[in-house]
């Protein structure tokens, strides 16, 4: 039995924190997520690289190189950083520790909300094998291209148009340029997470007592625990990645129509769409809450599929004019997003 990718993701994020902590107590220069690397080689956080150049109004060769590498990585892996490496989702799990029952209830209602992609998803959430009615089938096959008028879901779809995150990104960059220091770095929850780890290490290792020990974790808690939707609604790094990830064509969840219950047996399933934390419905991308550029490559849909019909191939498979293949919809989506 393969390890659940959710567990795997938690382990990867935790392992990164441990490796960074090892970096703190050794002199290997492993760096934090702001500049991971070894010795004097490091790759900069894209926002840090942009920020440092905007603030100091100078070209920093290492920052430019980092930026190019990061952009290429995002094109290949989309927002995989968010799904696999970022410590923030891990920090957000702490909330579940404190209020187990409430959090669980909230999570299931969340999942329902996110998963309510098609009209059938709400009506029959627990009946995966029930056949679709003709009306439902028609509703599911509706897409922006065929329905004539512009449908509302396109405008709402996260990642297809600008949203709050992009305002934060823009505000951070303008502020950085105007005031001359990387403003977002001051409050970046990723940086604050590792800062907290370091403060705790230094508290025990050197008896380093400071108000930072309270201020840093408190700021982190306000950001990612109070704003539950930090990643989706506010994080400028997520905004940057989703902008670049519009060019992503690799590792896109692809459904084998011969295996998928909905296409092969005309059953109402929708489990993949409900499994997606980002609100993407791989089966009906045109009904998704988020566009493909939001995909964190978390493999939740792959795990959720009862028929094992979903794979994430390196390159998009060539489909013979199938309208619902994800790769095709990515194309139409990016075109729709262009002004």
């Amino acid at each position, binding site marked *: 039995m393969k390890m659940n990718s959710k567990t795997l993701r938690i382990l990867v994020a935790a392992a990164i924190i441990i490796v960074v902590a090892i970096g703190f107590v050794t002199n290997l*220069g492993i760096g934090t997520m702001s500049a991971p690397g070894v010795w004097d080689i490091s790759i900069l956080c894209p926002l840090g690289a942009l920020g*440092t150049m905007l603030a100091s109004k100078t070209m920093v060769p290492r920052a430019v190189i980092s930026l190019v590498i990061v952009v290429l990585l995002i094109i290949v892996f989309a927002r995989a950083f968010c799904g696999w490496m970022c410590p923030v989702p891990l920090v957000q799990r702490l909330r579940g520790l404190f209020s187990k029952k409430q959090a669980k209830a909230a999570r299931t209602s969340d999942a329902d909300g996110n998963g309510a992609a098609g009209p059938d998803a709400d009506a029959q959430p627990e009946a995966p094998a029930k056949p679709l009615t003709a009306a439902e089938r028609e509703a599911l096959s509706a897409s922006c291209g065929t329905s004539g008028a512009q449908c509302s879901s396109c*405008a709402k779809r996260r990642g297809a148009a600008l949203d709050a995150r992009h305002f934060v990104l823009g505000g951070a960059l303008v502020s950085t340029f105007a005031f001359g220091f990387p403003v977002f770095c001051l*409050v970046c929850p990723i940086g604050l997470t590792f800062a907290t780890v370091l403060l705790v290490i230094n508290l025990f290792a050197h008896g380093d007592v400071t108000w930072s020990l309270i201020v840093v974790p408190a700021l982190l808690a306000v950001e990612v625990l109070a704003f539950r939707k930090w990643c989706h609604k506010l994080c400028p790094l997520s905004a940057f990645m989703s902008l670049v990830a519009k060019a992503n064509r690799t590792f896109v969840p692809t459904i084998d129509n011969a295996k998928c219950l909905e296409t092969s047996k005309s059953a109402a399933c929708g489990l993949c769409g409900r499994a997606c934390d980002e609100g993407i419905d791989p089966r009906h991308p045109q009904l998704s809450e988020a566009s493909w550029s939001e995909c964190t490559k978390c493999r939740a849909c792959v795990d959720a599929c009862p028929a094992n019909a979903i794979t994430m191939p390196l390159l998009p498979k060539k489909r013979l004019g199938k309208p619902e293949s994800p790769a095709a919809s990515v194309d139409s989506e990016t075109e729709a997003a262009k*002004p």
Partner: protein
Amino acid sequence: MKNDETHTDSPDAPAERAEGKTRIGMTRRTLCLGVGGAAVMLGLGGLKYAGSQSIIRPPGGQDEERLVSACIRCEKCYEICPRDVIAPAHIESGVLNMRTPTFDFSSNWCDWCTEENGGQPLCVKACPTEALKLPDGATAEGTIIGKAVINTDWCLAYKLIGCRFCYDACPYDAMQLDENDRPAVLTDRCNGCGACESVCVSLQNGSISEGATARAIVVHPLDEAEG
């Protein structure tokens, strides 16, 4: 101004407006959140004028304006320092300085990685954003990190105990002893390397130097030491 740009850039979609959305195709709530977030970012920029204490910086960080503008608080310099004298500054030094590099000379001092890297500071080499950057031909002697200042109330030698650890430790002959063997700093020769501070034992002898909150010889930032 950024927000206005997005307004004009976005395609005008009448169908969306009909559904109670704003002109740029997002719900009012999203717009408020976005504008609020952007405003917070701009407000945070104002922290620059909140008043930060001046603190001593690792080699290459003497241009404070440059360091603050380029440092992304990645802690790389802290990690790479072979003598573990670089420490991230705390909030007590000012909000803007929080997590930027400063020195902690409590157990060691900075000799520009003479043994470890032939006199080229590893922190400067490792800094990915060039926040720490030495001018061409910079030397340890000529780069003033700060100036050592003796607190004569706390210094054991000023109680005529004959302690001269700092005098012996100074690698730049920047200290002298008076006729009673009390040390004094020759400020024109001191570069703030921290060797004196790292060996000062005044705090371990609290019964003698009562009320001391720091070592009797401490490297202060240039403006503080002169002022």
